[in-house]
């Protein structure tokens, strides 16, 4: 059952993309059905790019060397039951803003590799991982771009050890439906 939800809003431009308005309504509905919701507006955070140094795996296990807003967002996310990854699609892919944060998520997993269904993946660092809801604003993305993004998220959550519970485009649904789907996980 879902109790704690973290929404990662990866919209770089709330004037241009209507995703933020959609998420505000979603949050309202989730809260009124008794769920606890924390929204992080990634555009308002100071989150540097991953350096690729791997200190978070090999020097200070689980902790990034860069001290910025990413740490609090990661703490909230790993202790949530569900994390909403929300972004408009820009140039056929989710935003650099969201991608930049995803790159900073690797302290949550372990460098060790295990083989799962014949394929390598990273091992767990934490006993439990949140489920994922992916909410995208499609914009001009083509079908092949969308299909590709879906597989990227599937592979990502194979390594981040959580199932994808919701994968929707805001053009094709509404906050009420998503709130209902989340409440029934």
């Amino acid at each position, binding site marked *: 059952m879902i109790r704690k939800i973290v929404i990662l809003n990866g919209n770089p431009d709330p004037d241009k993309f209507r995703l933020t308005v959609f998420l505000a309504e979603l949050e309202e509905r989730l809260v009124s059905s008794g769920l606890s919701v924390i929204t992080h507006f990634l555009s308002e955070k100071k989150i540097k790019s991953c350096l690729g140094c791997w200190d978070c795996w090999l020097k200070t296990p689980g902790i990034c060397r860069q001290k910025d807003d990413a740490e609090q967002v990661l703490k909230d996310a790993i*202790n949530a039951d569900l994390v909403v990854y929300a972004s408009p699609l820009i140039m056929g892919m989710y935003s650099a803003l969201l991608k930049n944060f995803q790159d900073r998520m690797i302290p949550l997993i372990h460098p060790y590799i295990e083989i799962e269904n014949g394929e390598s993946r990273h091992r767990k660092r934490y006993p439990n991982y949140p489920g994922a809801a992916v909410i995208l604003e499609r914009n001009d993305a083509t079908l092949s771009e969308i299909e590709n993004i879906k597989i990227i998220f599937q592979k990502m959550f194979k390594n981040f050890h959580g199932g994808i519970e919701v994968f929707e485009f805001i053009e094709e649904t509404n906050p009420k439906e998503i709130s209902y789907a989340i409440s029934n996980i």
Partner: protein
Amino acid sequence: MQLVIFNGSPRGKNSNTKVLLDRFQKGFVGNGGEVVSYDYLIKEKHLDEQVEHFKNADCVFIALPLYVFSVPGIVKKFIEEIGNFDGSGKKIMFLVQSGFSEASHSDNAKMYFRTLAERWKMEYLGTIVKPGAEGIRMMPAMMTKKVFKQMTDFGKQLALTGELEGPALQRIATPYEFSKLRILFYRFLQLIGVANLYWNIYLKKNKVFDRRFDAPYSI
């Protein structure tokens, strides 16, 4: 032939991406190719200039490490900055290298590059996919000899023919998946405790081997 290169690694000059690009350039320049510019996308304050280099190029080469099954954030930012652009008559190629042992993990980055080339209306020359590349900059020569030769050959092919050879692209992207035998072998390595030797060397050197499974954000 003129080429514009972008290195999309967050590690910049210390990247495995650079090591591979160096070998490529050797073959390219050694056979009459000309590298017009070489930009490190990590230098974000030069973003405007980098976009200009992209838009003015005849042939573009974007090289990067696989980050969470796609491009690093800095590369996505560069792509957004370029935006939809009519690159008719121009060519583009990519390199994606990753630490995963199997090339299959890079499938979606490769697919993304193909769709990007379509967006930009550029001729897609292909993507060099190199798995198992973590630590390539520190490996002994005998371990890198083959891949360095492959990279030099790609440079040569591009300079001489303006293309990348399909079968060569397939050869470097191996293994694509684990064979049954390889999975058994890996299980054996796990059993005798050396499957994660590479990581353990660093964990021990940094005196955090006992803390390697720390979960600092657990409530």
